[in-house]
Structure formats: C-alpha cells, structure tokens
C-alpha cells in the first residue's frame, strides 16, 4: 500500500474521531445547561465515582506523601537544607501530585467502569431502549456522570491533599526525626490558598475529562464483548494522557506569572 495513503488514512481517522468527540462533548455540555437534571442519578454517580474511589486515592496520597518526604530529605541532606522537606511535600502534593495521581487513579477506576457500563448498554440495545421510552440518553446517562465527576474530583483531591501531607508528616516525624510541631508550623506557614485551589480547579477539569472519555468510548462501542473491552482500554489510556497534557497546560497558565 502507498505510504502516503496510509498516512492520509491515519490523519483522516484522527480528524474524524476528534470531530466526533468535540460534537459529543458539545452535546453533553448543552444538556448540562438545560433542565431537567436527574439529581437522584447525579447522587448515585457521586457515590460511585467519588466515595468508592476514596480508599484508593487515600492510600495513593499517603504513600506518595511519605515517599516524597524521604526523597526530598535524601536530596536536601547533601546541602544541609533538610528544613525544606515539609514545604516541598505540601506544595508538591497540593499543586501537582494530589490532583494528578487522584486523576489517574479515578481514570483507572471510574473511566473504565463508565465505559464498560455504557458499552454493555450500547451493545445490548439498552441505550436504544432508553430512546424508545422517551428518555434522552445524554440527559439520563452522560450528564449525571459528568456533573458527578466534576463535583467529586475536587472533594477527593482535597481529602487526598490532607492525607498526602499527613503521609509526609508521619515519615518526617517517625523516620527522619523532625519535630512534629515545627513540621506542622512550616507546612502551614508556607502553604498558600492558591496552592490548594489551583489543584482543586485542575481536578475538576480532570473529572470532566474522565467522565467525557468514559461516556464517549462507552457510547460508541460496538462489536460485542471485544468492543466493550476496547472501549474500556481506550477510556483509561486516552483520559490518562489527556489528564497529563491538561495538567501541563494548566500548570503553565497558573504559575507562569
């Protein structure tokens, strides 16, 4: 086959997919802005996406905070500047690691679950059944998941921030012989509100990415179990990449000045 034809085919497929995703996202957003909203379903999804992700986010944050304290200590020890451990742990967790790791963990858990659930509903005609029952599938399936993810991700990240800093505190005071009072005072003195809010804003965007990619992949899955499996994998991989890319863009915007 002509190599140019292959390249052209890839480019056209990518453009087509981008266009479909953009239209899907636009349709979802317009449905969010138009009532009614199914609050009962939003509540259910908040439980599934947020509450049930809490253990994995908490554990990830705790160990990340701990390991961050260790690495910063071993690095700063060479320059006799161990006192920065508490500050860097707090900044690292709230600005970057808290939202990004929570985003990736929830992408692995929730985006996969959303894509698998909606994908199964697609291939078993349950989404078509919704339409025949005068129920808009976007309003009933997509909107509650997006709203729930956008609301719960910041809450998860906030809890994760606290636990991550606590992980650093535990390692700092138990293994590295930091004074607990000094550690807490340093953390509080150097941590600013913007550090926390920037992470929470990021996590809200990550929640949007996770829910949209999960719903989009599930909605467009076809070909039975194989198609659902492919949709699930795509949802996790693409949402993870988009989270990392969006994180870079937002960090550039928030902290460039």
């Amino acid at each position: 086959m002509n190599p140019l034809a292959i390249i052209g085919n890839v480019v056209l497929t990518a453009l087509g997919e981008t266009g479909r995703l953009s239209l899907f996202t636009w349709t979802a957003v317009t449905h969010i802005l138009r009532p009614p909203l199914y609050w009962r379903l939003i509540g259910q999804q908040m439980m599934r996406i947020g509450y049930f992700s809490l253990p994995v986010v908490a554990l990830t944050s705790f160990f990340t905070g701990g390991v961050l304290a260790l690495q910063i200590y071993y690095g700063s020890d060479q320059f006799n500047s161990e006192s920065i451990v508490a500050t860097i742990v707090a900044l690292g967790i709230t600005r970057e690691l808290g939202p990004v790791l929570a985003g990736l963990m929830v992408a692995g858990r929730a985006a996969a679950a959303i894509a698998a659930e909606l994908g199964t509903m697609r291939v078993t005609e349950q989404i078509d059944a919704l339409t025949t029952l005068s129920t808009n599938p976007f309003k009933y399936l997509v909107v509650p998941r997006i709203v729930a993810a956008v609301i719960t991700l910041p809450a998860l990240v906030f809890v994760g921030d606290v636990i991550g800093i606590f992980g650093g505190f535990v390692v700092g005071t138990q293994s590295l012989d930091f004074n607990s009072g000094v550690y807490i005072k340093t953390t509080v003195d150097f941590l600013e509100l913007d550090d926390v809010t920037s992470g929470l804003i990021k996590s809200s965007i990550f929640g949007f990415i996770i829910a949209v990619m999960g719903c989009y992949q599930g909605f467009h899955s076809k070909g039975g179990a194989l198609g659902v499996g492919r949709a699930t994998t795509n949802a996790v991989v693409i949402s993870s990449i988009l989270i990392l890319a969006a994180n870079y863009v937002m960090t550039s915007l928030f902290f460039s000045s």
Partner: protein
Amino acid sequence: MSSPIPTKDAKIELKNVHKRFGKKIVLHDLSLTIPKGKSLVVIGGSGSGKSVMLKCMLGIIRPEKGSIKVDGKEVTRLPGSDREKVLTKFGMLFQNAALFDSLPVWENVAFGLIQGRNMRRKDAKDIAIEKLGQVGLAPEVGDLHPAELSGGMQKRVGLARAIATDPEIIFFDEPTTGLDPIMADVINDLIVNSVKELGATALSITHDMASARKIADYIAMIYKGEIIWAGTRDEVDQSGNEYVDQFIHGRADGPIQMDVLKP
C-alpha cells in the same frame, strides 16, 4: 411494486426510505404502509434491513433520503424534544428484551411512566405490577433484577414494558427468537392479546413464520432493503413470489442465495 396493504388511514407511512452504511446500501427506496389498528409483520432473512428499518422509524438511525410519517406528520428529521413527544406513542419489545440491568424488574416496566411521563414512583409501580400480571408474571418478580430471570421471563418483562404506557404503536423486534416453541407461542398469544386490548397498531419483524402467521393481519417481505411483496396473512402461501415461497418454506435452493463458502 404497488402494495396491496390499504394506504387509507395509515398510522405509519414510509416512502422511498434510503439508508447506507459506507458503501453498503441497507435500505433501498423502501416504501411501506401500516394501517391504523392493524398488525403488520415484516419477514426477511438476516441482514435484509429489517432492524435498520425499525430504527429509522424510531429516529435512532436517520435515513439519507425518503419520508417517514406517523399519523400523517413527517418525523424523519425531528429535533430531540419533538422526537421525544412522538416517541410517547411508541412501545417496543427488543430482540433480547434490552432490560436495564441496574434496575429491578418493576422499575424497568415503569420506566416510561416515571421518566417519560413524570408519574410518581408509587403510582408507576402499581401499574407496573398490573402489567406484569397481564403477561403472566407474579408481583414478586417485580423485585428481582433482570439477570435473575430466564430468557422467556425477560421477554415477558420486555413486553410488559412495551405496553406499560398504553402506546398507540408497538414494535416487536424478533419477539420469539431464542425461545423454545412453547414459550414462543405463549409470547405470540400475549402479543395478540396485548395489541387487541390496547387497540394498538403493531409492527413486528421476524423470520419465524409460525409467529408471523399467528400475530399478523398483513405480511410484507423485505429483501436487500426493499419490500418485494406485501399482502394479507392468508395470501402469503399463494403469493406467487418465488422469494417469498423460498423463505416461508425455508429452502436453501431458490433465488435467495446465502454467502457460504462451498468446498
């Protein structure tokens, strides 16, 4: 061909409907009329375009060309909210029932009442239990989940859901596929009784001739996306159409050739 199905007092009317997926033409200038209060069964082999035709009527798939009218009103390119209003006239039994796994049986049946008509959950549940009774299922079944039911029971629940809103039009997609002959006949009887009680217009697609003969007032045959014959149920055995003859007798030899590799 000119359809012998009366076009006067049509509930649904399709004219020159055309649909293709890529290079494959699925519906080719398909025209069909479903008279009000009558039961039409469309027969045809796998891949002949039956399901796509049904989805075009429901607005799930949009045809490239042609006209689809319900009660004389063009519905082919209706926007979302107007389409939802038209769909309140419809009920549908899907091939594999398409019950919502996450909801108990009663909520599946009551779904159209709660979401489509904003009925209170308690009132909708009462109606759902009543409809389950009409299809021969006990009230206790209402609290089970679809995964706990047999295939025949799922079909009955699907039928109860299809009739729960007392629709004017009911679609049946392969209602007896995958069922044993006795259960298939039970479903056929339930379909006939439900349609009669509601005075609804029914459209079924099937390749089960026993089912077609039982539930049809009129039968039409679709082949390669076109209606190639239509007539009353009693005329199907003397159709004079070699495609229809081959299909209803289930013969491998005839004008319809299956794409199978021969050694």
